[in-house]
């Protein structure tokens, strides 16, 4: 018994997460580092053209080949990852900052507060996300910052809904009532007891939304409403590479694999979150 109460070793903690989660976390960390250190990992500028080496296949000089302007594809993928990761992390951060407090209050206090928060959220939710994002991008212009806020805005009601549902489930839980019986204020009960017990599904949702945000950025850039050329973005690269798919398949394969790995990484990460947050499940594994 005494031994069990000791902090488990790092190795046991990692093992308890399961292979998928560890792999997903590793993948995301590698991709984030790659995006962060893109200037040092690649050769020169992603916009540097070399017309003596146009549409060259993978070689030691250009590990992923070059595009129709002779730009190094690896360099462009690394810089494109920056846009993708910024879109993923940024938009979900916006959605969480707005959605978690609103959902928490709606689920905990219920009644008219719940109605005031949830009705507008339902209205936003009733639009298909991508259509709303396209409309907003068309209305407010196209740059990365605006795109992040736009995707974050569309995500907010999704986060609100999940957070509210999780908080609602704790309504009447004895430990919540117990905290009130010990003299804790509503704010304290919400932040100290409801939030930590209800956040797991929200984080799972957030990791899935990050994957979708990468796809959304790619889709927006693909149709020309996202990041503008010559800034590299994985979606933009896919769109540009389409015309050369027959002669230079690496032009679409490289950004495609990049998108796939990022989405996969976020989804694997999400699988392990409930286990990571629940002390009982953490110990059982």
């Amino acid at each position, binding site marked *: 018994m005494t031994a069990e109460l000791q902090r488990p070793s790092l190795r046991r903690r990692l093992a308890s997460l399961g292979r998928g989660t560890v792999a997903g976390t590793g993948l995301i960390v590698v991709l984030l580092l790659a995006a962060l250190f893109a200037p040092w990992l690649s050769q020169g500028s992603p916009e540097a053209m070399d017309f003596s080496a146009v549409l060259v296949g993978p070689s030691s000089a250009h590990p992923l080949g070059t595009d129709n302007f002779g730009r190094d594809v690896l360099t462009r993928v690394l810089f494109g990852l920056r846009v993708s990761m910024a879109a993923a992390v940024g938009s979900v951060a916006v959605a969480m900052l707005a959605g978690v407090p609103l959902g928490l209050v709606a689920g905990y206090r*219920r009644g008219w507060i719940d109605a005031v928060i949830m009705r507008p959220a339902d209205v936003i939710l009733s639009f298909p996300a991508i259509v709303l994002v396209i409309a907003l991008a068309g209305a407010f212009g196209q740059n990365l910052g605006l795109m992040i806020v736009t995707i974050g805005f569309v995500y907010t009601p999704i986060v609100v809904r999940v957070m509210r549902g999780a908080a609602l489930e704790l309504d009447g*839980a004895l*430990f919540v009532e*117990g905290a*009130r019986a010990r*003299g804790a204020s509503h704010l304290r009960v919400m932040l100290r007891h409801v939030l930590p017990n209800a956040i797991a599904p929200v984080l799972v949702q957030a990791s899935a939304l990050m994957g979708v945000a990468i796809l959304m950025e790619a889709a927006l850039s693909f149709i020309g409403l996202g990041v503008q050329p010559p800034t590299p973005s994985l979606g933009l690269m896919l769109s540009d590479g389409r015309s050369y798919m027959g002669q230079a398949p690496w032009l679409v394969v490289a950004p495609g694999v990049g998108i796939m790995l990022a989405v996969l990484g976020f989804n694997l990460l999400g699988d392990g979150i409930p286990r990571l*947050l629940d002390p009982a499940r953490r110990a059982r594994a």
Partner: protein
Amino acid sequence: MTLLRVTGLRTEFRAGGAWHAAVDGIDFELRQGEILGLVGESGCGKSTVANSLMRLLPGTARIGGGTAQFGDDDLLALDEVRLRSLRGSAIGMIFQDPMTALDPVFRVGLQIEETLKQHLGLVPAAARQRAEELMRSVGIPAPAERLRAYPHQLSGGMRQRVALAIAICCNPRLLIADEPTTALDVTIQAQVLELIRTLLVAERGAGVLLITHDLGVVARVCDRVAVMYAGRIVETGAVTDVFGAPRHPYTRALLQAAPTGEVPRGQLPTIPGRVPVLAARPTGCSFRPRCAHAEAVCAVPGAADPIPLGPDREVACVRHAAL
């Protein structure tokens, strides 16, 4: 000395657009150094009494009237800030289910320390030390290590001890215990009751309102008892008086239905019928439809008003003298 005096407490629940009284004007008194048992069947309103006193009612309920004088304060009229300062410090509370009464994501030590810091303003090191002392005083072995345990790592009995440690951590003058031992097995039950008796009542002179449906528990630890039926108190008095010579037909039936060691195996006596639903309480005495001695007079409004039988002894039955 009187610790808590409840008069005319009425708690209503909304159902189908109307308010119905789950607690229908009850009076009782709790003295210092006394354990008062509040007993009754499921649904009689006994837990609602506890939640009303703590003002922890759900959104569908409201307090319809009455006072609960605790020291200089009326618990039913206090503002939220003053109420919060009383909850957890002057008034402790423990609940039925120790499995869910502790927050599953925090170590139990933290949960004790949280309350100590809030009400007593202890610095972390002092709170930790006090938490360890409390864990020891409620009979938890190796308290220093157990402070680092998560609730799921402790047994039900251990958890109820931790809950008790939290409830008594600020030396409450009043403990409200809502079925504190119902989920525990018999030996642990006796230990927890004994702890309440020694730690709170004998050592600190606190008063305990013990809510239970277990007459054995009442007989073992309570000084006085109030029997509740359908939102009203039907009989009060010292435990020896009420159990030795029950005057209300409901108390009698309840005592007869209690299993004792001597009864030969066979069917236990039961009370026919069930507790009337909130919206359809009969006029006069609520127990009338299930009572073997009911007569026309029992249907008259006021038939169930408490009648004093002596110091500290009341019965709410118009026909008590004839029975």
